[in-house]
């Protein structure tokens, strides 16, 4: 298992009021993303545990693109990866910020 950690500055903070959200599942070519609202509003941390070693540069590009394009401030994001492709990772991250914005019932 390769572990990667990123701490990035986010210009937009995540919307909504939910404390946490969960998307995806750990399976071949898939990943789970847990989002928790527990860091300062201008920060986004992303911790990754991945079964595919040696892709740190790709992860770096994907998470930086995500934080630049989505409202990710204030989120502590934890990822368990089963070897997902970069487009799947980007999709799950986008689904995650959308889910934590959903109104609470």
């Amino acid at each position, binding site marked *: *298992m390769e572990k990667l950690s990123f701490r990035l500055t986010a210009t937009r903070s995540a919307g909504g009021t939910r404390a*946490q959200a969960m998307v995806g*599942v*750990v399976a071949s070519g898939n990943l789970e993303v847990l989002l928790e609202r527990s860091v300062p509003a201008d920060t986004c941390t992303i911790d990754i545990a991945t*079964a595919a070693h040696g892709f740190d540069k790709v992860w770096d590009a994907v998470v930086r693109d995500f934080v630049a394009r989505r409202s990710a401030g204030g989120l502590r994001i*934890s990822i*368990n990866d*089963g070897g997902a492709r970069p487009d799947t990772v980007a999709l799950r991250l986008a689904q995650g910020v959308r889910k934590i914005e959903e109104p609470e019932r």
Partner: protein
Amino acid sequence: MTAVTANDVSLSWYEASARQRIDALVDAGSFSEFIGPELREISPHLSIFDLPEQFDDGIVIGRGRLDGAPVLVAAQEGRFMGGAFGEVHGAKLTGLLRAARALKQDLVILFDTGGVRLQEANAGELAIAEIMRAVIEARREGVNVVGLIGGRAGCYGGGSLIAGTCSKLIISEQGRLSVSGPEVIETNKGIEEFDSRDRALVWRTMGGKHRYLIGGADTFVDDEALAFREAAITALKVGTRCDVTVLEAEQARLERRLQRFGEAEDAVEIWQALGIDDPTDVPALPTGAFLRAATNRENADDAR
């Protein structure tokens, strides 16, 4: 209290995730999770094998409401390691069953499992035994434990043993229920005994229709979350007993069934013996027609 509302979006049970199934099963917005992913109660064994972990260890447990009534819910995620039972996964279900007994609250188990997780085999086998005991102890206290089977991984191995202890089982055509899976039988007994690549053979031997016809499951539903919800509501309304009389009746029923169908070479022969007009057509029948054709099915009413 707000009015009871179901989530009315059409959702394939087979395709859905464990969390989606729970959301669609219980009254809208009523679910609260125990030991959620934020607690990171992960398997202590998978890292030894350098395998990826999942924050909920492949099972979601909690409480919710079903048609207004409180209910405990456990849902396996069949896509994570085939929904298999490990130490933490099993302990979460055992704990929930013990809570069901203590609180005298009914429980539904959304099965989606290949059985025991091989990487933590001893812990997994122990978990199966503990869960079966906890199911029986809860049922002895009058608690209903209803199993729902219709996931990708089916309900195999230790999962099928647990299903056997439930008070009622609800199954869809896609749901498969069997102790040994197709590949296991082929590996141990040879391809002449069971060709695991023959999908039609797999479905007619282990699939939901056959299980319903031979009394291995109590209710047959479409592969639709709302159908599972309605069936679960109905199943929980029927109070069940679990005592020696019931078990003896089940034993007698199984002996009768073995005598009646034990010589059959294929499921189709059993369907014919059940008096179904065109037994070879069973796999193609839509739900309504299938249920009409199944009027003379074996049933497990004595035992459950």
